């Protein structure tokens, strides 16, 4: 099939107040191709996407579909013209069923707006089958797990049988298995002649799926080439404007069998009906332990229980070898624990409050005098964390929602560094975080560990696990099934352990 330009953005620029988000960016998406768009957070990827979907009106430039201009700022028109998009933030209606969400706004009707349920079900069911998505069409979205919700979003985009599909970090929160599934769906799309714009921070993914890649930094397109003509490190370099691999490798190489401190966090025979049974785990001071496994292995539930966000049916938690009575997060925090939840948008940050607020939120007593907030302490503490973590933009008073994913994650970590936290639990710490910020976070965690903090990480990102973990625990179907020392294990071994009997 001859490749022709489907969607094209010509010299689009967009300025927000002081910030030049995009300047004369150009991008072409060919039919039957996957076009990867990469760049650090805040480089202007999201703005570009929003312009392509008509959600944002560019100051200059134009968007052409098959050479025809699409009216600016008209999502409906873009939709009808065949431009579908999977946004980063959820665009589902929690109370509606999977079926209704997939066809939202486009349900087939008989007459007078009466829904044609039969037709709707037919469409959805065979859509799900076609892309072998394992979803119950009648389940209410709010009753689904994060992954399943992402799948619904994908199904929604696929159902448009659009000419162009834009995907903004679709693999966030997806495990290996699901990612492969997604790639199959994407391939199907391109085989049918559709074009895909694929945004991701995971370079491996890009090299697997993309035919063409465009790198964007500070709102400018720096490089646009066939994937075959470039290399990973080249991309990273253009993306960050600096050499990174050394830093990461440094982490990876570091092998020294340094002796471990005491056990900081231990749980014995921890069980919750239907979720996990008899989990025993130890995290030493100065040690980074990763729990990996497939999505649905109940890792999140486990750590939330450790933190007291939910109550165990049985089992005990020991901190510094002393039994701890943790009934609620506040208790855990008093024991010096901190949790950085899986979905930072939903459970982590207070989006409309300032960075400063978010930084001190967990240790308010430290910024009070006589029970009153002391503005000076308040500011000083915030400033200290901000500098230490290199959060950008460095303005304490801007609301957290205006930060990039990476910086939001830094704020969340900073929240715990503020206090006397000795045990930090991170759930999927680098989802939706760009390569640069990722490296920063890894370094930060390693430093903390070296200072004697015990760190427990839940992660599905194999590369991450291999990079940061001293010890790797594998969880499958509610139990810890394997434990490996760093450097003594391959991804394959871990995956096999994770997928349990799948290998037998």
């Amino acid at each position, binding site marked *: 099939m001859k490749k022709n330009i489907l969607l094209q953005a010509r010299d689009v620029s967009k300025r927000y*107040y*002081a910030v030049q988000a995009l300047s004369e960016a150009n991008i072409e998406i060919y039919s039957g191709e996957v076009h990867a768009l990469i760049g650090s957070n805040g480089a202007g990827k999201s703005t570009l996407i929003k312009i392509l979907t008509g959600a944002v009106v560019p100051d200059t430039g134009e968007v052409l579909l098959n050479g025809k201009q699409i009216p600016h700022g008209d999502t409906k028109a873009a939709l009808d013209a065949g431009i579908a998009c999977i946004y980063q933030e959820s665009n589902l209606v929690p109370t509606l069923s999977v079926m209704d969400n997939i066809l939202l706004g486009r349900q087939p009707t008989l007459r007078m707006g009466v829904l044609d349920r039969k037709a709707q079900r037919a469409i959805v069911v065979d859509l799900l089958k076609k892309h072998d998505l394992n979803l119950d069409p009648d389940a209410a979205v709010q009753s689904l797990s994060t992954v399943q919700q992402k799948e619904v979003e994908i199904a929604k985009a696929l159902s448009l049988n659009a000419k162009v599909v834009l995907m903004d970090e679709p693999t966030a929160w997806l495990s290996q298995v699901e990612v492969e599934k997604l790639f199959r769906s994407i391939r199907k799309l391109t085989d049918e002649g559709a074009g895909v714009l694929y945004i991701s921070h995971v370079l491996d993914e890009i090299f697997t799926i993309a035919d063409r890649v465009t790198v964007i930094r500070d709102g400018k397109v720096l490089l646009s080439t066939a994937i075959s003509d470039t290399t990973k490190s080249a991309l990273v370099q253009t993306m960050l404007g600096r050499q990174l691999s050394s830093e990461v490798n440094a982490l990876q190489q570091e092998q020294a069998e340094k002796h471990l401190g005491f056990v900081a966090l231990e749980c014995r025979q921890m069980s919750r009906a239907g979720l996990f049974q008899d989990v025993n785990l130890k995290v030493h001071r100065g040690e980074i332990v990763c729990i990996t496994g497939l999505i649905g292995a109940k890792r999140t539930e486990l750590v939330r229980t450790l*933190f007291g*966000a939910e109550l165990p049916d049985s089992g005990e938690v020991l901190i510094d070898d002393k039994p701890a009575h943790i009934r*609620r*997060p*506040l208790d*855990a*925090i008093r024991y010096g624990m901190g*949790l950085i*939840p899986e979905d930072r948008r*939903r*459970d*982590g*940050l*207070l*989006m*409309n*409050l300032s960075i400063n*607020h978010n930084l001190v*939120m*967990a240790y*308010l*007593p430290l910024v*009070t005098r006589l*029970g*009153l*907030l002391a503005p000076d302490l308040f500011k000083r503490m915030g400033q200290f964390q901000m500098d230490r973590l290199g959060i950008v933009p460095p303005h304490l008073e801007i609301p957290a929602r205006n930060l990039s994913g990476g910086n939001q994650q830094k704020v969340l970590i900073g*929240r715990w560094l503020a206090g006397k936290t000795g045990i930090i639990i991170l759930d999927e710490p680098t989802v939706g975080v760009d390569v640069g910020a990722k490296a920063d976070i890894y370094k930060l965690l390693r430093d903390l560990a070296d200072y004697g903090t015990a760190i427990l990480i839940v992660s599905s990102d194999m590369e991450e696990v291999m990079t940061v973990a001293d010890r790797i625990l594998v969880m499958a179907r509610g139990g810890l099934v394997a434990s490996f020392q760093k450097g003594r294990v391959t991804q394959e071994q871990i995956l096999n352990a994770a997928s349990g009997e799948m290998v037998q």
Partner: protein
Amino acid sequence: MTTLLSKFRDKSGRIATQRFFKDYGLIVVMLMVIAGITSIERNFLSLENMIGILYQVAIIGVMAACMTFVIITGGIDLSVGPVMAISGLLAVFTLESTGMSLVSAVCVGLLAGAIIGTINGFAIGRFKLPPFVVTLGMMSIIRGTALLIGDATVHLISGPESFLFIGTGQLFGIPFPILIFATVATLIYFIQTRTPFGLTVFAIGENQEAARLAGLPVLKTKTLVYTLSGVGASIAGIILASQVHTASAVYGNGSELDSIAAVVVGGTSLAGGSGSVHRSVLGALLIGIINNGLSILNVSIELQLVAKGIIIVLALALDRYLQSEK
């Protein structure tokens, strides 16, 4: 105005004006309304009338200020009307039974509000019941209780002077209720801006789960905001009783809507997470000014309500426009 503007010069020009109007748009609107009324009736601007307005706003103002936190946490308190009534009644009864002891009377009154509020808060925080229904139920429970203990008749307050002073007295030429109003408002504004409690209130309204995971005392805070609202209603009830020299179980009907209106007109969203006490005070003032203006212009009963509705909508539309100015 420019001086105020200069406060925001840290950002680019447009943000400055936006933030300026976000905080002060309501005042601008209020000034316009005042100007409008004054242009027809000069005496509206007389000192006497200005003090009169504050005096008339005091009761609702106190309630609105105290209810602001409830609404910031995403709740609502419908029980304040009856709480007003029962606090007034109890205060008066205590006066009679304790031989005119002002202190005990006031304490009993406030205690009533505190207890009722706490019950509301606990039911809402602990058992996760919808605030609307809980406080609605409480509204009817308290109204009934008030009628049971006080019947529907009015109970005269025979003294002491000190009690009547609360509502009718003057300090340095300023009516005492205004001073109470000012004090309460300032106090709550202080709590909002300077205490961990105030911060927690916003956190809860913004995202309860996140607040919990950050180790904030959600249940305690949620309970306390309703306690505060109850106390506010009691203060209002005592002021009212003292102003009208009587107490009755049927007082305070509909004042719940008035005070919620004041808070919301102030721009605090019923969805929670945003808002401020000072804006609630402004809201109460705006409504008070409109009421006062309409009766000083001697607008007929029929048209007063029509006008009131239209002015409120216009005023807020204007406020909204100023905030989102291009």
